[in-house]
Structure formats: structure tokens, C-alpha cells
């Protein structure tokens, strides 16, 4: 199978407190070197808690945030943003907040027209036909086109957001928490729609979420992010069922499940990004932490078969 997307040692460092001249007051590493492969037609799920770098990673992939170092390859070619139209036809993004991703002062038709005109040069009848086709694909009624974004519920607005991303006819869709703002009954509608569209249009998905169960339900493979680093990757059915990294296990054990007793009220927190610890970032909360962990950063390496963990003392299955 060919690779749709490949990142090699992708990093992002943000400057905090920029000054007019001279270096910034501080720097925060939002994404530590991340190397990921996504095969064509695959759904790679990315989970992690807020602030762990999920969105920064996603925004680098679509060119909204320039990486500090590292490379991105799409379908075997180095990412090239020289021609925005060509780039937009490769990869698109679906935003978390469906309502805020639509300009409140434009009608849905005006919003839908932009990518079709600018990326595909469609005009007139062809433009109208394509919009109708896209709206049909996301199960929206054509009369919605003349309305304004505030007239829609979250689920409908998210369908519009998906239709706009599809308008570019991309090969890869980055879905950044696409259902987090939706109610469960509507969330399932959107997730099933995404699954249908994927087969229909032959798409590759990068699905980002903080909801483990949702990620597990839609992904082929899952990457777990902690404090800017990938700490575990593996097949979806294994990662939470048999976690190898202690953090993945903590995540899986924290998800509220009917009938499971509540855990103890420990109060572990993320390390301070302005003052990151040496060694493993999870050591402060990890029951297995050793001196080695507090000294050396663990590398991501194969634990068993296609399951990888960045841990000095991975869990046995």
C-alpha cells in the first residue's frame, strides 16, 4: 500500500512574549519530533488530552502553521505550498467548532463557492451542479444554501463544514475533533456520514479526538500523544484493549464506563511546558517510573508486532 502522508521528525516551537527586537522571552515546544505514516485509504486516529499538541500537529499538516523543523510528504512528494490551489486539492481540514468555522456574514452558497471557484475554477452551471452534488453527499437540503450559518444546529453546520472540505476534492481529510461539539445522537450521524464519504470518495483520514471510544470506533490505527510526543501507536483494536504505554493505560482506565468503579482521586497534572522535565514527560504521574525514566527520553520503538511505545518499561500484554 502506498503512503498518503508521511511526517519525519516534525516539530513546532512557539515563541512566548515576542519583543520588538531580540529573542522572545521564552519558548514552548508544542510538538516534539513526530514521525508518522498514514497509508492511503487508512484512518489514523490521534488521541491525547487538551494541550498535548494535537491541533498544532494537524495545522502543520495543512500548512496553517509553519513547522519549526522536519518534513511532511504527501503521496511521496515533499509538501509544496508554492501553489496554494494545488495544495488545497491534496489535503483539507474539518474544524472542531462547526459554527465558528463558517463566516457569519456569508450565505452557505457563498461559503461553498469559494473552494470550487478558487481550487477548481468552476463557474456557472458546473458550479451549481457540483454544490448540489456535495450537498446531496452530506444529506443536506438544497434550500439551506440561501441561509446564514447562525440558522443551523451544530450537526448541520458540521455537515456544511464537511461539504466545504470535500468541495476541494482532497485526497486527505484532517478531522480535528469533528464531533466534539455535537450531542451524542447527532455525533453518530456525522461519524457514519464520514465513514460513507470515505469509501465513496476514496479518502484518507487523520481523525483527531480526545474521546477514546469515538477514535476506537472509527480508526484503523491509533497514535497516542502526550505532551507533544507520540507515546504509543498500534492497531485500533489493540491500543486501548492492551495498552503498552502507562499513559495509554491511564487514559483507557479514566474513560467513564457504566459499571466500572471510580478510580482514586490522585491529582497528576501535565508538566509545565515552560520548564519541561528531563527524561520521560510522564514520569511524574507514572507508577513504573525509574531513575532511567527521569534521565533519558524514551524512544518510540516496537514492543510487539505493529504496536510501538515510547517507554523504558512498557506494560506486558
Amino acid at each position: 500500500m502506498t503512503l498518503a502522508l508521511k511526517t519525519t521528525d516534525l516539530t513546532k516551537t512557539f515563541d512566548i512574549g515576542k519583543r520588538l527586537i531580540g529573542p522572545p522571552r521564552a519558548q514552548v515546544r508544542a510538538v516534539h519530533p513526530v514521525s508518522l505514516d498514514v497509508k492511503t485509504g487508512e484512518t489514523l486516529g490521534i488521541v491525547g488530552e487538551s494541550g498535548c499538541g494535537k491541533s498544532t500537529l494537524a495545522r502543520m499538516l495543512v500548512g496553517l502553521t509553519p513547522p519549526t523543523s522536519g518534513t511532511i510528504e504527501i503521496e511521496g512528494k515533499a509538501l509544496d505550498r508554492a501553489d496554494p490551489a494545488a495544495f488545497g486539492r491534496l489535503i483539507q481540514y474539518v474544524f472542531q467548532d462547526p459554527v465558528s468555522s463558517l463566516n457569519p456574514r456569508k450565505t452557505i452558497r457563498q461559503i461553498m463557492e469559494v473552494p470550487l471557484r478558487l481550487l477548481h475554477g468552476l463557474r456557472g452551471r458546473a458550479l451549481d451542479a457540483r454544490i448540489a452534488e456535495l450537498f446531496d453527499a452530506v444529506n443536506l437540503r438544497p434550500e439551506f444554501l440561501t441561509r446564514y450559518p447562525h440558522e443551523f444546529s451544530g450537526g448541520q453546520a458540521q455537515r456544511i463544514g464537511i461539504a466545504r472540505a470535500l468541495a476541494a476534492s482532497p485526497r486527505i481529510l484532517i478531522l480535528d475533533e469533528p464531533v466534539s461539539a455535537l450531542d451524542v445522537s447527532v455525533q453518530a450521524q456525522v461519524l457514519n456520514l464520514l465513514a460513507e464519504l470515505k469509501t465513496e470518495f476514496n479518502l484518507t483520514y487523520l481523525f483527531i479526538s480526545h474521546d477514546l471510544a469515538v477514535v476506537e470506533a472509527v480508526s484503523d490505527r491509533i497514535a497516542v500523544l502526550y505532551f507533544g510526543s507520540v507515546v504509543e501507536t498500534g492497531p485500533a483494536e489493540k491500543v486501548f484493549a492492551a495498552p503498552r504505554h502507562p499513559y495509554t493505560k491511564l487514559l483507557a482506565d479514566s474513560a467513564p464506563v457504566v459499571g466500572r468503579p471510580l478510580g482514586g482521586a490522585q491529582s497528576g497534572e501535565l508538566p509545565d511546558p515552560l520548564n519541561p522535565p528531563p527524561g520521560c514527560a510522564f514520569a511524574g504521574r507514572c507508577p513504573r517510573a525509574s531513575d532511567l525514566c527521569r534521565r533519558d527520553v524514551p524512544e518510540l520503538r516496537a514492543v510487539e508486532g505493529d504496536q510501538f511505545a515510547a517507554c523504558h518499561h512498557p506494560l506486558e500484554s
Partner: protein
Amino acid sequence: MSLFLRLLFRNRLAGFGAVVLGAIVVLALLTPVLPLHPPNATNTANRFLRPLSEGHMLGTDHLGRDLLSRLLWGTRLSLAVGFAAALIAGLAGAAIGVIAGYFGGRTDNVTMRGVDMLMAFPYILLALAIVAVLGPGLLNALIAVAVVNIPFFARNIRGVTVGIAHREFIDAAKLAGMGHTRILLTEVVPNIVPVVVIAMSTTIGWMILETAGLSFLGLGSQPPQADLGSMLGEARSALITAPHTSIVPGVMILLIVMSVNLLGDGIRDALDPRLRSGALARPMATTRVERASTPAPRADGLLRIDDLETQFQIGKRVYRAVNKVSLDLRPGECLGLIGESGSGKSVTALSVMGLVASPPGVITGGAVRLEGRDLIGAPYELLRSLRGRKVAYIFQDPLSTLHPLYRIGDQLIEAIRVHEPVSHAEAHKRAVRLLEDVRIPNAAARAKAYPHELSGGMRQRVGIAMALANDPDIIIADEPTTALDVTVQAQILALLSDLRRERGLAILFITHDFGVVGQLCDRVAVMYGGRIVESGPTADVLAAPAHPYTKRLIACVPELGAGRRVLAAIPGLPPAVDDLPPGCAFAPRCHKAQDACRKGEIDLQGAERQVRCLFPEMAQ
């Protein structure tokens, strides 16, 4: 647009301003065709004629020129210059603000420092300096007034633009292939136009005054040309002997500036989105109550809600957010209230202590009895003394109850001392103990932190500590963990569970997450479209949901460990509570719906296990 005009004229003063300004503008426009004396024709024989003289309605000035004519021509000029200055300042300031705000970074830094420098000069001094450099003249005065006002616009517009530039639809536009120029023109600018209009309408009066000021000092319009400022300036020497020469232009300036400012304030209010939502009035201290009768108490308990009805009355629409909801909370019990967004969970919770904003909220029926005493319609003083001491709230966003500018320790001390007259030292000791109780590490040191210095989880712990400050019997927690990460959520839930056992708290726990209910709550009530559709012991409801909605909602929740799959979904959307269908609110989405479901009221049936459905799942 018609909404805008309606809002504008609802404000009487703005309407008055509009009429006065309209009359002045019409007069100024008509000036060239009115039968007036030439404004600059001197006639020293007729100097200082009093108003109402033959042929000179407003009299004449020191050169015998007709004051009425000069006044109208002068008004015309002053208005034109004022509007032009406002337009130039507005457009230039907006352009600077938009560019600085959109591009950010170095562009922003450099331009805004420049603007700050301009702002550091006293206003009139800067204008004087500009005129001194350019030389006197009306056009130069206009430029000066425009320039000194640019920073005000630039600052305002930059702030708004920064907010817009970080919205997701700007990113979406970039990905759709738009360049910066196109984004600025089609995405950013349309969203800031209202702000520019507001800023212009509130400053144009001052700009007219400033131009008049420069002309008064002889730096603006040059003789013999009349504008309001220069007329005042020339009249100054005759202030005592011929006061009318000063009074005439003075009154005109007063009228213009007053009417412009009244109208400007009106425009600002009418364009303000917060006021558009309907409420122009000040919120009341407690929720308004319009209750025909009080239901008889059914049984006693710690907190009993009987047939509670809360509505939002907005214009002609009535949103039945809470529709005959009954709940009872027993001592030491945790009752879950679950439902999708908009189902009325929060409004139910807020109605208990009269915290629903009025207007537009009104409690139209039912009773809320705390230890047998009805709280609906209770005086504000009583409710206030019970808030915190008997019933405390925890919200999804702890920042809504924490003041951003005070240290959390001080806020806890304050909360303790509101209800109990203890010394500061004693209160401090208790505050630290509370922080320890909610498992905040290093409590004494953390008490000195400001809310923004804490992570989301720590802040929610502080929110819980605030709720516990006066040892309440009941905690109403409205989605306290929805904004938190799973690992932090697990910590907070465990904490609430421990506290409940240690202190014998009764908790009304609002959530949309069945997993959370299953872990924490003894009993659960399911809400849909403002009504309770099912309730009972948590284990029973989750294991064998009786209402089709509950059953299908539970099926929608993906469970960890079930692998990759197609998820169950409920077609359609939850109903809008201003337009509920007759009969069962779930009927349009229910696969079991019969004609009977769409007629008449369906009652909640059962005792410990209740369901509001004609064909409940158990009957299968």
C-alpha cells in the same frame, strides 16, 4: 435593517437626536437654494443688528453680515468638515487596525507602537502642532482633526480584528485557496463594519467640535469664509456688547454635537449584538415569577421540585425550557439529570435558586421546596442567605464563579465570611483546609494563585472548594467535568464521590454522559424537550431503558473496547422548545410512533421507575 431601525427608535433620546440632526442636515443641504443674503457681503452701516431686525432674522455681525446666512453656510461647512474628518479617521484607522490585527507579529508591533506614540501626545496639542506645520486653513484643520483621531479607530479596530483573525472561518478561507487580500476584503472587513460605524457615530460629534475649536483659534477656516468655529472666534471681542453674535453659532454647535451624540449612542446600542437578543432592561436580582397556583406538596424531602415550569419569553415566542418537571433529592443522594444540549437541564438547575436571568426568563408554575419551604417567589434576601449555605452550585466553567483579578484564597475567605462572622485568620485557615479537601497539592501556596494561573482541572477543584465553603447540604453541579480531559474528569468525579460520602452531601448532577451517570449517580432522570421522559435507579435505567429515546440514546454512545463499527444514530434533531409538537416530543424521531403519540398530553407513569411513553420498551 428594519430591526435596526426599530431598536434605534425604541430609544427616545436617539429618536430625538435623529430628528434634530435630520432637520439641521436638511437646512444645510438646502442652504444654496434658500433666499438668503450673500454670507460674505459686508455692510458696516448695519453692524451688530439685533436678532429679529428687518431683513436680518438673526441680526448681523461686526461687519454687518447677515448672521442667518452665515450660520447656515457655516453649519454646512462645519458638518461637511466634521463628517469628512470622521470618514478619513475612520477609514485610515480601520485600515491600520485591520492590517495590524490580521497580520499580527512584527507588523502589529511596529504599527501599534507608532499609534501609541501618537496617543501619548495631548490631543489638542497634537492637532495644533499639525496645523502649525501645515499652515492654517480649513483643509489643514480637517487633516489635523482626522489624524489625531486615527489612533482611537486603529486601536479599536485592531482589537476586533485580532478576535476575527483567530476565528476558524479565516483558516477555512485560507484552505479554500484565498489569498490575504481577498480574505481581508471578503472575510474580515464585512465583520468589522458594524464596529467602524459604531466608533464613527460616537466620535463624529467630538470631531465637529474639534474642527470648530481650531477655527475658533483662527487656525481653521480663513476670513471671510464662515464656519461655526470662526464665527464664534470673530464674535469673541463683542461677547459683552453683542452677545447674540456668539450665542447664535454657540447654540448651533450645541444642537449639532448633542444630537449627533444622542443618535450615535442610539446607533451603538442598536448595533450591539448583546442588546439585539431582546433584553434592553437590567436583569433582575432573582427570576421573575408569574405563578397562578402552587402545587400541593407531594411528600417531604430535602429538595423537592414539583411541576416546575420555566419559560423564556422573547418577543412573541415562548420557549418552554422547563415543562412540568418534578424531581426529588434525598439527603446524601446523588441524582443524575441527563439530556442533550437544550433539553432544559441547566434552566431546571438555575430555577431552584431563582438564578435564571429575567428578562427573558419567567417561572410560570410549580414549586421548589427546600426542607418543606417553597423557594419560588421567595424574597431575594432569603434566597441569598440560602445560596452557598444550603444549596451551592458548581458550573462547567469555574471561571464564571471566580473573579479573575483576586487570588483564589482571598475569594474563598470572602465566601466564608459572607455567611459567617469569623476572623480573617480563621477564615484563611479554613480556606487552606478547603483547598486541601479538594486535593489541591501545596494548598497554602496555591491559595496565593490567581484563577488564570491554574489548569482547568485545578480551577474546577477551586470551584468545588468555593461550593463547599459554607458547608451546604446540597450541591447542584451543572456539567462540572464536560470541559475537562478524561483523566482529569476521573479525578474530579472521584473527588465529588468522596466528598459526598465524607460530608453527607446531596448532589444534583447534570451531565450528558451516561458513563458518568453510571459511575456516580444513585438515581437518574432523563430530560428531552424540557420534560422528564424517564427516571429511576441508575442501574435499572441503564440496563433496561424503558423510553425509546433513552434506549436509542444509550445505543448511540460508543463504548471503549468494542472495536471498529458503525454507530447507532437517532435520525433528526431534538425539538425546538418554542414549537413543541402536541403529544410526545420524541414522536418525529421515534420509530415506534403511532397516531396516539401525536395527540394529547402523555403522563409520566410509575412510582420509583417512571416513564412518559405510550409504548414503553418493557411492554415488548
